[in-house]
């Protein structure tokens, strides 16, 4: 099958121009096409937020859960259809704030769920508030003088259960494709943290347009190969 076959034609995509979500969406559709995975056995679950709209754009069986509740839905699917591919595609706020308990336990149980986290380092849909992924000193609508809270270390949480962890970015499309592929191939719980540009709720506040944001991401993030660990701004795949 082709990438386009996994895209739902009858809906209009509502993401802003230049949003990183388009690239993650494309990468996941492309990998599904590559795997030729039967649509009836493919489930895409998203939560709430800009990333949360993703499930409605796939032409597979899909469900938009409540805020933070993607993983329980995927667990329910796998319980009764163990051979199905359960893909969770959601935002950093959705997965790592309100949904963290579910993520943590799915990781602990090593549930066979593929999690793609669109990480724009804010709650975008609701107006660019600070998220658990917001870097120190970053100005957001709820940290007008600069964020003072440390960000969540989701990598170590996932790795503490010896699960698949990858960090990539929409500024590195080839790397992103590779991470999506490896995550899909992995048997068991896998988590891909995708640093993704939000030109509206992050870019505008920092005085950057899409091009500037992508340039900034290219400078900020470094790809590492065959590593056992990743520093904060390093991208790579860790399988233990």
């Amino acid at each position: 099958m082709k990438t386009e076959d996994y895209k739902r034609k009858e809906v209009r995509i509502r993401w802003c121009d230049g949003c990183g979500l388009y690239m993650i969406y494309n990468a996941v559709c492309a990998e599904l096409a590559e795997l030729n995975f039967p649509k009836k056995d493919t489930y895409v679950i998203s939560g709430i937020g800009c990333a949360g709209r993703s499930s409605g754009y796939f032409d597979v069986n899909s469900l938009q859960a409540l805020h933070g509740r993607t993983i329980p839905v995927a667990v329910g699917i796998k319980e009764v259809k163990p051979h199905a591919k359960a893909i969770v595609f959601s935002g950093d706020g959705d997965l790592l704030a309100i949904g963290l308990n579910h993520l943590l336990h799915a990781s602990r149980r090593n549930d066979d769920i593929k999690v793609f986290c669109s990480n724009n380092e804010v709650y975008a849909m609701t107006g660019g508030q600070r998220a658990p992924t917001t870097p120190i000193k970053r100005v957001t609508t709820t940290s007008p003088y600069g964020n003072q809270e440390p960000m969540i270390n989701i990598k170590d949480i996932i790795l503490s259960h010896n699960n698949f962890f990858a960090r990539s970015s929409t500024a590195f499309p080839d790397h992103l494709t590779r991470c999506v592929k490896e995550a899909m191939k992995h048997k068991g719980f896998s988590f891909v943290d995708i640093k993704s540009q939000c030109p509206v709720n992050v870019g505008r506040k920092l005085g950057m347009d899409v091009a500037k944001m992508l340039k900034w991401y290219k400078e900020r993030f470094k790809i590492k190969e065959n590593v056992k660990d990743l520093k904060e701004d390093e991208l790579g795949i860790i399988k233990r």
Partner: protein
Amino acid sequence: MTEKRKEKLFLQGNEAVVLGALQAKIGLYTGYPITPASEIMHGIARTEVPFFQAEDEIAAILSLYGASMTGAKAMTATSGPGFNLMQEGIGFGHRTEIPAVIIDVQRVGPGTGMPTRASQGDIFASCVGSAGDFFPIVFSPNSPQEAYEFTIHSFNAAEESLSPVIMLLDAYIGHGYETVMKKEIPLKTRKQFLTKTRHFTSLVAEDGIPKTTDRLAYRRVTKRLKEKQLSVAKHYNFYDYHENKKSDTLVISFGSLSRAVAAFKDKFSLFRPIRLFPIIEQLKTISKKYKKIIVAEMNEGQYATLLESFLKREVKRVPITGGEIRLAEVRKALLK
């Protein structure tokens, strides 16, 4: 053992729920431990039925929808504090139109309350606890026998209505042992659920296309859902009515308290809704015959409040609260 004797069991209400769920062909059970509902989970865990012990009740209810969207029948059971956590999932299930069964073995709340004691305090929570408009089907059996049968009816009603159906038990029924007779109840199965790819969302949508700023779409969807719930409910029009020609008073009660109220059938006419919601339509005509209507329930008058607006007349509240039913207290309260 003869065939006949095999059909007759001695079970507590919670075990009867398991029996009913197995007969209804449950495909997934999910839950989080809580008194007085845990025996349902213990029972399921010893069967072949897929079982997910969730990290919390939010995960428990949402995972039902995951299983159910693939076509499986799914159920969870809890009590007050867990039922609170499930609220977001109830409205969600109504809007996404995915069937599920939720059992609430009520204990005295709010908060931690009296964990081992019975109550009927979750009447409001069962029908108005989730945000927005929705039209739930809620059953309230009053014995292990009925807990068994209405578990099957709950699955059937869920399959027919494509909505989360709630069955309210309480600690008396959940933990009390009685004879349960196995019974044949035809099973319902939803049609054409996942024939092609389908998108489920709780956004206001038609045919999976979100219409989040279209007021007319909202009204169309809500009207359709309401009519669907009311028409499916008609197939489950379960109630008991005992007419006492000498009495000008109708006493309404349900669940375990109705067992105690039954002792006063020589004094009053009695009405027992087994389907609490949508409220039994016949009650409108029946109630017209009576000068006085009393609603006895194990809370401060939740069902009474909803009945008043349904019947458009005042009813007398008889709250039997604190987690115990004493016949002398019920008598005194009814005759006062």
